[in-house]
């Protein structure tokens, strides 16, 4: 199998949520190799880990993010794709550890204080990981101090705040103020059902997107290394 062909296989498996040979999803690929096997094969064939990440995993998750944004696929399909991506990522972890491949940056994410919803946050995490970001997930009901502690531990990270309620959305303001008060250059992204671009500007956050792929696109523009 040619290098490009195997990379496309990885991207395809991630796009359609084919984790590995044992996975019954999707039914039309039952019994076939999945993202895990193809990633191992790619590395065994000498394809650089960076190329596997960029042209396999990221390509696949990019398609997933766009299809999700365009309502062509829905949460269950994204979750299966994320599992397929994780299966590939396991084979790449040693290369991250050795420094042979590097993440595009660190992204600290959490659902703000008072809010216990996590599905949206988890979807954003999955799609960011699939696009090469290292995600530090602080979970739900996260206070400003916890975000600041995480920033101290991971300086230069982008911070993502999620909220589902208008009441907890208000807590984003305080968190953004504290983060910016600590370091005004920290890039803060916000999202969640009640959040708008207007609110983003009002509280001094840097990025708002109604969907995960929009966030990836914003980050690509802002942190593009050319």
């Amino acid at each position, binding site marked *: 199998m040619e290098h490009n062909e195997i990379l496309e296989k990885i991207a395809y498996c991630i796009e359609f949520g084919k984790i590995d040979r044992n996975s019954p*999803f*999707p*039914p039309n690929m039952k019994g076939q190799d999945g993202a895990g096997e193809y990633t191992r094969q790619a590395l065994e064939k000498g394809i650089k880990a960076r190329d596997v990440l960029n042209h396999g995993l990221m390509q696949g998750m990019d398609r997933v993010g766009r299809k999700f944004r365009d*309502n062509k*696929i*829905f*949460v*269950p*399909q994204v*979750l*299966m794709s*994320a*599992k397929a991506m994780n299966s590939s990522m396991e084979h790449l972890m040693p290369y991250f550890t050795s420094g042979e491949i590097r993440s595009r940056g660190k992204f600290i994410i959490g659902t703000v*204080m*008072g*809010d*216990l*919803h*996590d*599905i949206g946050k*988890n979807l954003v995490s999955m799609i960011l990981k699939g696009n090469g970001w290292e995600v530090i997930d602080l979970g739900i009901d996260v206070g400003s101090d916890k975000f600041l502690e995480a920033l101290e531990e991971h300086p230069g990270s982008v911070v993502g705040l999620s909220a589902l*309620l*208008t*009441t*907890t959305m208000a*807590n984003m303001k305080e968190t953004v103020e504290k983060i910016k008060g600590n370091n005004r250059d920290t890039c803060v992204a916000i999202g969640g*059902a009640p959040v708008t671009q207007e609110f983003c500007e009002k509280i001094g956050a840097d990025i708002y997107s109604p969907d995960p792929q929009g966030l990836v696109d914003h980050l690509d523009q802002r942190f593009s290394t050319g």
Partner: protein
Amino acid sequence: MTRTFSYSFRELSVTRGDLEECIGGGSSLEIFSDRLEGVLKSAQDICNIRGGYRVLNEIDLDQETRLISAGGQKFSPGRIIFDQVKDSDGLLVFVCTAGEAISNLSRELTGNGDTLTAYLYDVTGSVCVEKAMDKLERELFEDMRSGSVGLTRRFSPGYCGWDVAEQQKLFSLLPEGFCGISLSASSLMKPIKSVSGIMGFGPGVVRKDRPCSICDQRDCLYYKKVSK
């Protein structure tokens, strides 16, 4: 006067189609049909569906300010909801939950990495509590109709422009921990799979269509249903 009710999961006739409608995606979810069926089957033993309501017979609806006074509280539900309940003589304040266990299971599954099943349980909890309220609403509607009394649709804080923070006022009208449901300072109900809201009733009440066409809340589950 307060009343409580409970339903079995079976009584609500939650179907795979209900879950698919909530998730979106229609036929593209066919590949998950076994998993959906499995979740529906086990949800029967997990959901603890119960709720209750308080009937407030003395209310005041100020047509100018669009404020609803009931039980010592003043609600400001916004123009859309006020127009739906403005002919009411009384108000029914309700809560309903699918129970704690389904959310706990969903959280546990997420922790174990089975995010798909976790999500399907989460959706099942949401659908279940909405169907319970559909059933209660239907029953109350029929009961009242036999006495020539009309009942409005149900409306909840957080929908149709009604500030979710007004949930604090709503809960203040119910006994503490009513039906096992509590409210956080940020107006989040616990168990998470719970709903609360109001319905108006009275001889002059005419049940109107859902006001989705004049509401701009496009991510609302009712809007999604209507727009299909």
